[in-house]
């Protein structure tokens, strides 16, 4: 079964249009050329679409790493929706 971190890595790779191998668990905003401001918002839009969780502007600035996104999705309020 795909773990949360693998799901997030795959989603970021899809949003940034790079191979998933380029998304290590420790990757953060700016760690990859494609993860710039536009890339970041692409990730946020795909997160909303795929996981069905609302991403408002309060949290956009906090979801700046693979780990932070995983932690956000694993919060009890979302974990039911994301199936984690």
């Amino acid at each position, binding site marked *: 079964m795909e773990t949360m971190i693998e799901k997030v890595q795959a989603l970021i790779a899809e949003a940034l249009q790079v191979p998933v191998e380029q998304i290590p668990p420790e990757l953060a905003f*700016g760690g990859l*050329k494609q993860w*710039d*401001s*536009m890339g*970041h*918002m*692409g990730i*946020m*839009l795909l997160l*909303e679409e795929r996981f069905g969780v609302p*991403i*408002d*502007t*309060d949290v*956009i*600035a906090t979801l700046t790493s693979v780990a932070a996104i995983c932690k956000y999705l694993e919060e009890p309020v979302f974990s039911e929706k994301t199936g984690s």
Partner: protein
Amino acid sequence: MTAQLQITPTVTIPEHLTSEVQSKLAYVDEAILRARVAGDGITLELREQATGSRRGELEEKVQRVVTMMVQGAFRPKVQIPEDHLDRPVPYSADPNPDLLARGEMFQEASGIYTVGPLVTRLIAFFEGQFVALADSFGAAPYRFPALIPARYLERVNYFRAFPHSLTFVTHLREDLEAIDDFAQHAACDEHGLTTPSGSFAKFQTLLSPAVCYHLYFSLADKPLPGGQLAATAVGNCFRYESINLASLERMWNFTMREVIFVGPKDFVLQNRETGRQRTAEFFEKIGLAYRVESANDPFFIGEFKKQAAFQSAFQLKFEIRAKLPFKDSTLAVGSYNYHQDFFGRSLNITLPDGSPAHTGCIAFGLERMAFAFLAQFGLDVVKWPDAVRKSVMGEE
């Protein structure tokens, strides 16, 4: 004869996007003279009646733009670090008629204005204050050209983010026949200059949309000397805003004084904040009614949703919005900007540790600053705050 076209959007336009959508409708079609977005729909004023397929085409374009901007848009959280909009000011009339009547404002063309002696002195007063602000940071003075190479703007993605506001510069081709042909046949009427085809060289240059870009380009592809830099410059800026151009409020050609910071993140953010506090002290001294609120740049339609939300989320831009009592609204007269390491990365400006430099700037629109002041205090200098009157009238 002009005509009106009413359109009901297929998606609801949230209130926070109303003005953005309205401003972008200017670029939808050349037939649009004015656009108004209200709760009940969109009203377009057209150059002439649109019927049949032409009407359908216009409606389809408007619906497409509205949908692109609204669907999936993030709701910005507006931050207001300062609010002094309730400061009492002595004037509430529209200053435009007075400015025109006294010869203090003269329109050469849409968005292009000259200003008279009083407004010029008032602008010089504000300019002096902003130079003093720059001096308080030990900012090095620079002079930048009005022209900017196209390849520079390409490197910072400007053509994608702000294509609608570009102003292009060219010249006649270095070709004797082309120059002769132009000299013989070029003719100007109220619609513009008509020229023989093939007269012009390829665009290599544009008119600069901002002051600070020139500094960043001068620092490109090398380590930042000293690891940090404060600089200042005043310059002509050019942003075409179509039917949104209006008075000194929204000019095609305007002047900005900027205080620019390049260096580590903390250096840029701390100076931006210190600049905000020092500016607040100045505005308090002259009694300006204004507030500072988070904002986003006017990105074009395709980029708008993502870029604007990003700026909002990371609090990258704050505007100084001065009160315009005569229209019960506000006008952005300046801004506090932080670009993170966007320019450092895009232009390869590096810090001593090899990481990309962060940048930020404090920018003041000088004509807008003067206009907002006149909207709050009028043109009768007797009613002006002492500090302004004495300086402008040479009473010191």
